């Protein structure tokens, strides 16, 4: 039987090991798997590479992982969200490495990893500092940068509803990076507001269960 359900948040994050690369969905305050992040905080895996659009804010979520010194590298597009206090502190102290990736290139690199592609040519960042050292080429007068896929060991995603097959659908703008990250990790863990005994409508599914390895209910919205 296909059953991706795990009993609780701490069981869900148990496989995450020291040194893992972990994708974390969400944008701003929406679609963040806050329950899983805090379970990971309790677990205390160290030396993590966090791949996410932002670098957290306040004393919660990714910011709390940074505060506790669990993160050695951040790959993101925008680490300067107001309130990114712990990222800034760790960054200024040289305690965390930063790779800044344009937001669309970040999404596309993650998707490429999930889709088994070896890379892609994007016009984004051509002629800028973020293309330095990268292979480029001009096609029909447009400059492109060759960008590699970006996979991860784990992905933590947050959905509105899920079922035992691992199918997930999302609410409003909480979708954001969650579907592409779910594709790109060796082991994807989904936190959903409601985990149903009955299957989701197959038309409503955004992340097919094949991408999800563990699913857990966490009713609270971040």
């Amino acid at each position: 039987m296909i059953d991706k359900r795990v009993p609780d948040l701490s069981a869900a994050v148990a496989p995450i090991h020291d040194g893992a690369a972990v994708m974390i969905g969400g944008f701003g305050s929406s679609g963040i798997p806050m329950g899983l992040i805090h379970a990971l905080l309790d677990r205390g895996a160290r030396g993590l590479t966090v791949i996410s659009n932002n670098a957290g804010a306040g004393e919660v979520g990714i910011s709390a992982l940074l505060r506790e010194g669990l993160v050695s590298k951040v790959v993101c597009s925008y680490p300067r969200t107001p309130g990114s206090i712990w990222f800034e502190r760790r960054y200024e102290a040289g305690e965390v490495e930063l790779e800044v990736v344009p937001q669309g290139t970040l999404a596309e690199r993650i998707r490429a990893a999930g889709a088994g592609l070896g890379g892609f040519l994007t016009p984004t960042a051509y002629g800028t500092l973020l293309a330095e050292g990268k292979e480029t080429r001009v096609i029909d007068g447009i400059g492109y940068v060759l960008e590699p896929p970006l996979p991860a060991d784990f992905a933590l995603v947050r959905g509105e509803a899920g079922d035992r097959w691992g199918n997930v659908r999302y609410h409003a703008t909480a979708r954001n990076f969650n579907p592409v990250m779910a594709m790109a990790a060796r082991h994807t863990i989904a936190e959903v507001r409601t985990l149903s005994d009955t299957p989701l409508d197959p038309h409503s599914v955004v992340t097919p269960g094949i991408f999800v390895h563990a699913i857990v209910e966490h009713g609270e919205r971040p």
Partner: protein
Amino acid sequence: MMRLTEDQIAARLAADIPDSAYVNLGIGLPNRVAQHVPEGREVFYQTENGLLGVGPAPLPGQEDPELIDASKKLVTTLPGAAFFDQAESFAIMRGGHLNIAVLGAYQVAQNGDLANWATLDDKHPPAVGGAMDLVAGVPQILVIMRHTDRAGEPKLLERCTYPLTGAGVVNRVYTDLGVFAVTPDGFRVVELAAGNSLDEVQAETGARLLA
């Protein structure tokens, strides 16, 4: 020679599909494997036109003309199914998310090369479909086919003579004469169809069989 029927070959292959597997079945004989998976196993079939969780043919009166599989046959959905578009469907295939693909073949070589999309016949246009994507992305490639072609020529060969679908991609071959694993040393006999000797099967094979 004792030869398995097509349904017997399909049933033999189906026995090797574990519970909870995600599987893509090619058009034709591979498609018949679904009917033979042992009771109690929940296997999820993907059809590359955009569905994971393909169910059996619909009951009369319940046909949905827009719910078909890659063979263009009417199907149903299993509980837990999901629809998606073509780009995502091939992300599933190419991205290594499926466990097993079952394909037909014109030829399989002892190094795992597969030829199943084009012959050297100039009269017919080549047609590749999703076969090259499957062999590029699915970790277990199982071939199901007759041991020899209609002219009696062997289809398990030292080297494919038809254009390749993929190089070194096949893991196992299921035929009417047995089950053969592709190993670094060549075809290893996993089992022979009851009643045949290795020598008899070897005589219909274009590469050396390892016992």
